């Protein structure tokens, strides 16, 4: 028995030595005609659902590119392959795996993990080794204040979530011949980093548009009731009520606005699609505006998948579920790499980084263009409105499939 164990230990040591000897090439990892990318994704743990969405998104992109012949770099076509590791939804493990991908597997181009937390753990590693990373699932604003040079994000940052709603309110006011400066804004945000980011974005737009804040409530994380805030809303009659507090905040706001018959011309919330308000709360959810990163009904189009709807169909066929935006933004991250490889004309890390930084690309997921901090400044957030129990895209107006119903009819007339 002891002998068996000993032999096994030697075998492991041998394998490690082999990996160390082979691993860590200085040039980009290209095996034959295949370029290798790496990603740590959450396949187990609390993010396992969205982690799988992320991986499926990457895989669909890889499959489509390879079917189309691959990426053309320097007159030659290369296939794409992604090495995945399971980060178990823990940041420390994510950072370890990033080190492993870079040092042992020799990966020189990284795709992002799922969630802001994991991205925050991995970005310092890719930055240290000067490895370009394009991510689609880390929206925290703090990611873009660190001066990272090798990280790029295709999704809109969290401060963008409800900005489109403020623009929409101003647009509607002008349509009715009112000055947007006369608009009164009521805000209720959960006191957590995400919602505070959302609040910062709204505040900037309120200032830019010259609107007036009449309520600025911060909901404590343990709160289960918004009656006090909504009583105030009834009293001051704002023109727009914005709420952010993940799925719980969305459910609470929609339910209590209806229960207390609060009349407000515009109600905008985040996460009401993940809270499934239209499905679970029925009529109470009608006319609510919901912020989202992407939707399949948008008229964005690219040369790989065609329209957003066509992407969604291919995805459904491959994985047998409706693609959530987490999958779409992951595919988009891969497309950014493909586009950059082709423009750089080589797999030289610095040239590819420069090409990514200069990206000006239209994808099925939306336009992609990075600012100096690496965030995508071209893609607006999408606003749904719940109409007849369905989520219909109403903004941005240019890409929208449905028309906004504004103002929301009072409860007495519903």
């Amino acid at each position, binding site marked *: 028995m002891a002998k068996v164990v000993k032999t096994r230990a030697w075998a492991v040591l041998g394998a490690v030595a082999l990996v160390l000897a082979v691993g860590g090439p200085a040039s980009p990892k290209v095996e034959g005609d295949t370029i290798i990318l790496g990603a740590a994704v959450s396949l187990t743990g609390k993010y396992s659902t969205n982690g799988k969405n992320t991986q499926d998104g990457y895989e669909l992109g890889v499959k489509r590119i390879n079917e189309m012949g691959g990426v053309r770099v320097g007159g030659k076509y290369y296939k794409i392959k992604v090495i995945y590791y399971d980060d178990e939804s823990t940041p420390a493990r994510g950072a370890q795996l990033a080190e492993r991908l870079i040092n042992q597997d020799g990966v020189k181009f990284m795709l992002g993990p799922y969630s802001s937390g994991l991205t925050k753990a991995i970005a310092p590693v890719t930055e240290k080794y000067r490895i370009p990373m394009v991510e689609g699932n880390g929206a925290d604003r703090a990611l873009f204040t660190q001066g990272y040079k090798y990280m790029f994000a295709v999704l809109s940052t969290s401060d963008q979530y409800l900005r489109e709603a403020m623009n929409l309110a101003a647009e509607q006011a002008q349509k009715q011949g009112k000055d947007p400066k006369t608009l009164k804004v009521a805000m209720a945000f959960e006191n957590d980093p995400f919602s505070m980011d959302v609040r910062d974005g709204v505040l900037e737009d309120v200032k830019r548009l010259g609107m007036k804040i009449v309520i600025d409530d911060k909901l404590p994380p343990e709160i289960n009731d918004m009656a006090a805030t909504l*009583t105030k809303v009834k*009293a001051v009659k704002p023109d727009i009520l914005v709420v952010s507090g993940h799925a719980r905040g969305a459910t609470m706001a929609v339910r209590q606005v209806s229960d207390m018959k609060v009349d407000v011309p515009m109600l905008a919330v985040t996460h009401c699609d993940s809270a499934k308000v239209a499905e*679970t709360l029925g009529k109470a959810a009608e006319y609510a505006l919901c912020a989202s990163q992407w939707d399949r009904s948008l008229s964005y189009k690219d040369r790989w998948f065609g329209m957003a709807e066509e992407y969604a169909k291919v995805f459904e066929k491959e994985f047998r579920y409706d693609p959530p935006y987490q999958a779409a933004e992951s595919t988009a991250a891969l497309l950014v790499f493909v586009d950059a490889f082709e423009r750089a004309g080589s797999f030289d890390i610095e040239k590819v980084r420069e090409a990514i930084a200069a990206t000006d690309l239209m994808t099925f997921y939306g336009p992609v263009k990075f600012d100096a901090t690496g965030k995508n400044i071209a893609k607006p957030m999408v606003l749904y409105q719940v109409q007849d129990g369905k989520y219909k895209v109403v903004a941005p107006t240019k890409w929208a499939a449905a028309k906004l119903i504004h103002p929301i009819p009072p409860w007495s007339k519903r």
Partner: protein
Amino acid sequence: MLFFLLMVDNLFLLFNAPILSAQLLVDGILIGAIFALAAYGMALVWGVMDIINIAQGEFVMLGGYVTFFLAAAGVHPLYTVPAAAAALYILGWALYRTVVFRVVDKDMFISILATFGISIVLQQLANELFEADVRTAESGLGSLFFADGLIVVSQIKVVAFICALVLGATLFLFLKHSRLGRAIRATAQNARAARIMGVNTDRVFATTFALNAAICGAAGSLVVMTWLVHPYLGLAYTLRAFMIVTVAGLGNMASVVFASLGLGAAENFAGFLLGTEYQAAFVFSLLVAILVWRNALLSRQRKYLK
């Protein structure tokens, strides 16, 4: 600065539209009634078994899930209140027989640790089994309008309030007049003497703990119809119940009710005037103030042996 301006604005609002105070008061009292249920149960267990049950909020949460799943299966949510109570009664009984009986006559810290452990296990189990999603159940009831629609009260809150009162009254009568109720009270007064008189205190403890779980289950069922449930909902109810019992004392069920309703209303006014972020802070400051005041009152009495 902005904070004070908004606060002054809010105060003016109340003066200009006194009807708003009525809305706040009504809402606060109705919220308070739900907390009263959790507090009843806690006072009962605390008084009879000398155990502070930290898992109180988790019982509320689980009661909510019972209603949610039955409603999803097609049962009208209002009829699931007794089912939630029954399910939680069984769970409470099982928990007593497996864990709680071991800590009943031990030091209070040990029982706090034990129930704290139970609360974590229930929370994580709920997260694993039911997922972290936010759930609601639709009672299908509308709203009541008063004063030209200026005061709106959702009917489900009224139902919850009435349920809370009925449950409270039933509990009171049960403790006062039934045989088991008398045994429970006797055990609360002096467990050892009760045992000598032939009371099966072990059974009394088990019933008390299960009864508490059942009350919380009913409360949870009302919570999911009025607001929402998710696996991490519990702490708010545990804390609130603890606070109410601390203010009201253990002996008197009526004072538990009044403390709950009063705190509910105070909380709502604080949320309106100071903004919701100071709502909880205000209520807990109030608790400190009440305790200090009561302590001062007590210290003025001269105590001596007769």
